[in-house]
């Protein structure tokens, strides 16, 4: 693959506008997805269908978001991040606009699930990769700020969506949310390209493979890293899905259970920003931090069933939230550290696609464990075990135990050393 001389990452300046773009993107993609529960209730009432069938609407959207990662990465490697994100923003808004005219659940699967999901896929990967490309010394903190949008947005959007639904019914509310989603186009416009994308390739096949970064599949560190996150994703989302039912089963009422989730979300937000800021300050390698926080997340999940009284359960939920939030910026920056910023665009997409296998399996597996054992203890322990296993897998990365890797020179050294 032809080496590209990249311009030096500015580590500031316009980079902060790219962080803002990432923040907006995180807010308008994941903030919207997290607050979609308001519409879920309306769909069940209007279409008269079972909640199982209606929940496919967001499940399809999230699945397309993750599986579309490589496509999105390939397109942005070829054409640059900006046009891809702007197109993605337009598609996600268009999907919701069409959904407001839906007359059956199938229409919703196609418009929100497929079309908006594809839009979200085109927005997510290039935005995160752009932040990684614009920063080196402060990369983790910039990424942490960029992904914190989701947490803040889900606070604002849940009551906002409810207000829109009360005023305009779900059709009108979807129309307004579509307009709000179009702001992703504006966020994409902020992604100024850093130098020209590479365009000299020998043959169509090598062009395609370089677009999808498929050679990364032969790259042992990348494979180890991605496998780690398949394991992590299998357990990561279990508390999001099963903490509230578990709390209800222990005897707490709906508001107490919902408050547990809200508190975990706040802790998640703090985890993202605080740990990413710390990571840049301390001279600790990212993969070491990542191992620590993955292990702690897994541990807090294993300990969750021990929470018998409300204060203990709340404390454990806060721990889980904080550690789970810390993982997010560390994951993307850890990847950039391993494969180099030149290939981070394609790498994130490929990793997302591989991760989706874990997240698709995780929640159903946990639900099945609960059905055969009778409560959620086994589910949480198994989910935590997956995370702990993932953290141990990180030990097998090459040069794991070397204490210092110079991050500015690492791009050249990693590309030379790992290109085998």
């Amino acid at each position, binding site marked *: 693959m032809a080496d590209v001389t990249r311009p030096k990452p500015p580590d500031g300046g316009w980079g902060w506008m790219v962080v803002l773009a990432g923040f907006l993107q995180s807010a308008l993609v994941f903030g919207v997805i997290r607050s979609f529960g308001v519409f879920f209730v309306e769909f069940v*009432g*209007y279409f008269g269908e079972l909640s199982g069938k209606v929940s496919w609407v967001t499940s399809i959207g999230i699945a397309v978001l993750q599986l579309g990662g490589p496509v999105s990465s390939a397109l942005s490697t070829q054409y640059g991040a900006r046009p891809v994100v*702007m197109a993605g923003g337009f598609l996600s808004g268009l999907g919701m*606009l069409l959904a*407001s005219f839906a007359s059956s659940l199938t229409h919703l699967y196609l418009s929100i699930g497929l079309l908006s999901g594809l839009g979200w896929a085109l927005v997510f990967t290039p935005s995160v990769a752009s932040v990684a490309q614009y920063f080196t010394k402060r990369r983790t903190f910039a990424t942490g700020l960029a992904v914190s949008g989701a947490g803040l947005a889900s606070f604002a959007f849940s009551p906002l969506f409810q207000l829109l639904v*009360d*005023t*305009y*019914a779900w*059709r*009108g*509310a979807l*129309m*307004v949310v*579509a*307009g*709000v989603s*179009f*702001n992703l*186009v*504006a966020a994409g*416009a*902020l992604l*100024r390209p850093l130098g020209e994308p590479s365009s000299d390739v020998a043959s169509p096949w090598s062009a395609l493979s370089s677009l999808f970064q498929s050679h990364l599949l032969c790259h042992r560190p990348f494979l180890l890293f991605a496998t780690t996150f398949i394991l992590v994703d299998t357990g990561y989302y279990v508390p999001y899905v099963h903490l509230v039912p578990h709390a209800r089963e222990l005897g707490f009422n709906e508001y107490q259970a919902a408050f547990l989730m809200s508190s975990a979300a706040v802790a998640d937000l703090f985890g993202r920003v605080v740990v990413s800021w710390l990571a840049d300050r301390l001279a600790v390698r990212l993969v070491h931090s990542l191992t620590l926080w993955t292990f702690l997340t897994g541990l807090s999940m294993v300990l969750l069933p021990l929470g018998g009284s409300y204060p203990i359960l709340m404390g454990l939920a806060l721990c889980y939230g904080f550690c789970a939030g810390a993982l997010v910026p560390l994951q993307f920056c850890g990847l950039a550290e391993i494969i180099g910023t030149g290939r981070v665009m394609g790498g994130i997409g490929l990793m997302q696609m591989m991760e989706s296998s874990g997240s698709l399996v995780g929640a159903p597996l946990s639900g099945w464990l609960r059905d055969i054992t009778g409560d959620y203890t086994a589910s949480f322990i198994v989910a935590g075990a997956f995370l702990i296993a993932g953290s141990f897998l990180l030990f097998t990365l090459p040069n794991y135990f070397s204490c210092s890797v110079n991050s500015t020179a690492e791009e050249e050294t990693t590309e030379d050393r790992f290109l085998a």
Partner: protein
Amino acid sequence: MKSKRFILSLSGSRDLLFICFFSLQKLSIHNQSFLFDYANFYTENILVNRFSSDPVEEKVIVDSPVNIELSCSLTGTYTGSATIVMMWKKDNETVKISNVPVNATRNVLNTQYNLNIRDRNQMRSYTCTFQSEKEVKATFHLQVPQIEGKEHHVVSYVGDSVVLVCKSVKYIPVSWIWYMSNGSDQVAINDSLMPDKYIVKGKYGNTTKLKILKLSDKDDGSYWCQAVFKLGESKGKVSLKVLTYMVPLKPFLVIAAEVIIVVTIIFLYEMYSKKKQMHAGKISLALLITLIAFFYTIIC
């Protein structure tokens, strides 16, 4: 037997303390069994302190035929005339009356009134009165259960369909009837006459749903769901608002215009900062200002 006790306490003139309570004893509807099963005894107490000038009233919710014992109790030391007249009235008509000599050592005076409620004529207000020089009274209002409609408007769109729901979970009505407003009147909705406009699901049971198809402007307004009980009816109100698609379209277009403006500003700023060194930068700035003015005039 389920027994409910509501205790209303009234401090009357001087030393007069007036406590009024009733107990509701449900026997089986077919009056077959008079054996009271004390295993299911359950008591509910409400204590209200008021002065004699305020009327003491209590609502009693009854949905189906039942035996009721209304009971009033007067306590306190009393210094006055020799007898007290205890009276029960149904609305304003006296139905039971008794004279009681006042015994100085006795603190509590009780009077009961038994009712076998079978039809709606008995669903009235019953007042117990204690009379000597002054009169103290308390009233029980017998009512069918109130139906709660929906507080907020139900919103829907022209050409769409909507479902209006009414529930009565605690007391199950015999049947439901839906009404729509026609000017100041309420007109019953007959869904068999207009099957492609109105569909009523659940005429019997604790939930009823009225589905209105092919909505138009004229369907905007109030609808009533009437629950028919053996001893009376009660209505709940649901209001429907029918909007056109133009209503949410306006905020959508405003936001879309804002997006276009922001994107334009970002691109123009980029072109401007690239050409900062060249004289063409001044032209770009003029272009920027012109475009902003252009969009401003479009919106307003």
